[in-house]
């Protein structure tokens, strides 16, 4: 009988806590083993050419307090992925990017990508504990419960936002080491915030990057529980630099402007 693995048979747990609302999950590795071609030999031998890492990425709905944001700092995490009756463990995962986005008609989604500098595979890399669910009460955020504070939006309708935070890391390897002796959390973190609005009185800025035309904005973004006022996540950025504006119109739609703000966070 054809067997397959469905979503109800899978589970992602991070540091012993189950992650709810996961919409997609990817993990894997690519071997660094390289062929060694040598003179006079008609065979190929393989050896690792650099330290081995793996990666894991996930997308989830914002159905409770933001789970991955806390890992944008210097702390790694371990985890376990259960599928059917098997499990894969990973250790020393460091978040490399975090994202949050929402459009009208959607539930806000979170995304994360992490690099695994420890181990990943079907082994006992740590004592598995029975993962507990993150929260018994699912709180769903909704597009109707998001507050964005930016001067431009008083009369211009925000259709979507997208937040991306890059958290670069530099692994420091001992020349004899298989895993890094240290993983340095680099600074600064690059923050990209994109909005898509339907303009009313929005004024496109000047393309010249000169002092009198350069635009900085303070932005705050608050995501509440669906149709309620209790905050699930909030972001506040000062002096975000406007770096892009894209105006779009066609015969079948309302005019829209996508604009991008860039910022940095020093650790």
């Amino acid at each position, binding site marked *: 009988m054809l067997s397959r693995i469905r979503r109800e048979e899978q589970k992602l747990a991070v540091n012993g806590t189950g992650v709810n609302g996961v919409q997609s999950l990817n993990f894997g590795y690519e071997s*660094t083993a390289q*062929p*060694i*071609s*040598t*003179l*006079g*030999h*008609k*065979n*190929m*031998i*393989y*050896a*690792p*050419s*650099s*330290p*081995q890492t793996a990666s894991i990425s996930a997308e989830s709905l914002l159905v409770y307090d933001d789970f991955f944001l806390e890992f944008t700092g210097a702390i790694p995490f371990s985890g376990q992925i259960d599928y059917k009756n098997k499990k894969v463990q990973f250790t020393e995962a460091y978040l490399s990017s975090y994202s949050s986005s929402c459009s009208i008609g959607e539930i806000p989604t979170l995304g994360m990508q992490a690099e695994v500098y420890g181990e990943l595979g079907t082994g006992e890399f740590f004592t598995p504990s029975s993962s507990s669910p993150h929260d018994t009460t699912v709180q769903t955020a909704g597009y109707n419960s998001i507050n964005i504070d930016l001067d431009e939006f008083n009369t211009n309708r925000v259709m979507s936002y997208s937040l991306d935070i890059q958290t670069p890391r*530099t692994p*420091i*390897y*001992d*020349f*004899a*080491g*298989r895993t890094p*002796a*240290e993983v*340095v959390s*680099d600074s600064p973190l690059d923050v990209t915030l994109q909005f898509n609005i339907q303009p009313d009185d929005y004024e496109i800025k000047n393309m010249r990057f000169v002092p009198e035309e350069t635009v900085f904005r303070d932005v705050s973004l608050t995501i509440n529980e669906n149709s309620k006022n209790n905050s699930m996540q909030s972001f506040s950025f000062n002096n975000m630099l406007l770096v892009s504006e894209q105006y779009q119109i066609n015969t079948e739609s309302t005019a829209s402007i996508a604009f991008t703000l860039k910022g940095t966070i020093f650790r």
Partner: protein
Amino acid sequence: MATIRYDQVPLTIHYNDRSETILAYNCALSEAADLRPVKGIGFKGAVEQTPQGARTASISFSYTPVLTGIVDTFLETTGSFNIINDLASGLKTSKQSIASGVDIVFGGISGEGLLSSYSLSLAPYSPVQCDVNFELFGSGENIPVSGSLTATEGEKEEQSLAGTVGHSAYSSFMTSGSPATITSEDQTGIVQSVDYSLNFQYEPVYKLGKEFPFSFLYHSAEEEASITENVYQASGIAFTGKNENFHLNIKALDGSTAMQLKMDEPVLSNTQVSVDAGGLVNATKQIRSVY
């Protein structure tokens, strides 16, 4: 077909009844004639180009070493290391003045050579790459190389893991039985890479009437290691350097066999700390031994 592929030109060396096939990434054989144009008043151009010194030849190659010896945790060594490692370690501390050569055969061309330089690089979790240069010498009237380049069809083998080649995975850079690191007051440095080199100086002995030297006298060797790490000893280096014995123990990927490079009481000759915007501070220290 005159074309010869890389897999048809094996490189082998023979020394003291031992033979090894080298896992060479590349190989270059070069020959040079020491000619001088003879000019004279009353003659246009050069009358001829005439020898003023012996013809010379050298062969250089990069390879990954196949390890055969054993280094235990107490730095005791047993078994024979690979020929070039054994040769380099023995020659630099040799009390004998006359150096003997290694027979090198490259795709049907052979010659006898003296190891003139030997270097290797160790980077995190990667195979060791060694670079060597041999000066080929003739003897009396024999030219430095003989034979002709011919293709050799070796046996085809299954692909496999390079279990016995030198790899940084289990290697160590030790001093006094402990990992060699620069330490500051509360931090231990992480040795990120090691670049090692060893250069030999010889004196050829010529006889009048013979083009090639009949013997080579070994004079001295200079050994250096450049170590990159992430801490810097702010107190600086002493004028006379710092003397400690260093052992670079390189093990095979399967951890079973090894080779060892021992630096006798090297002095710290140079330290440098540098950083680029957006990067991390790196420190390098250079240690040097002279034999």
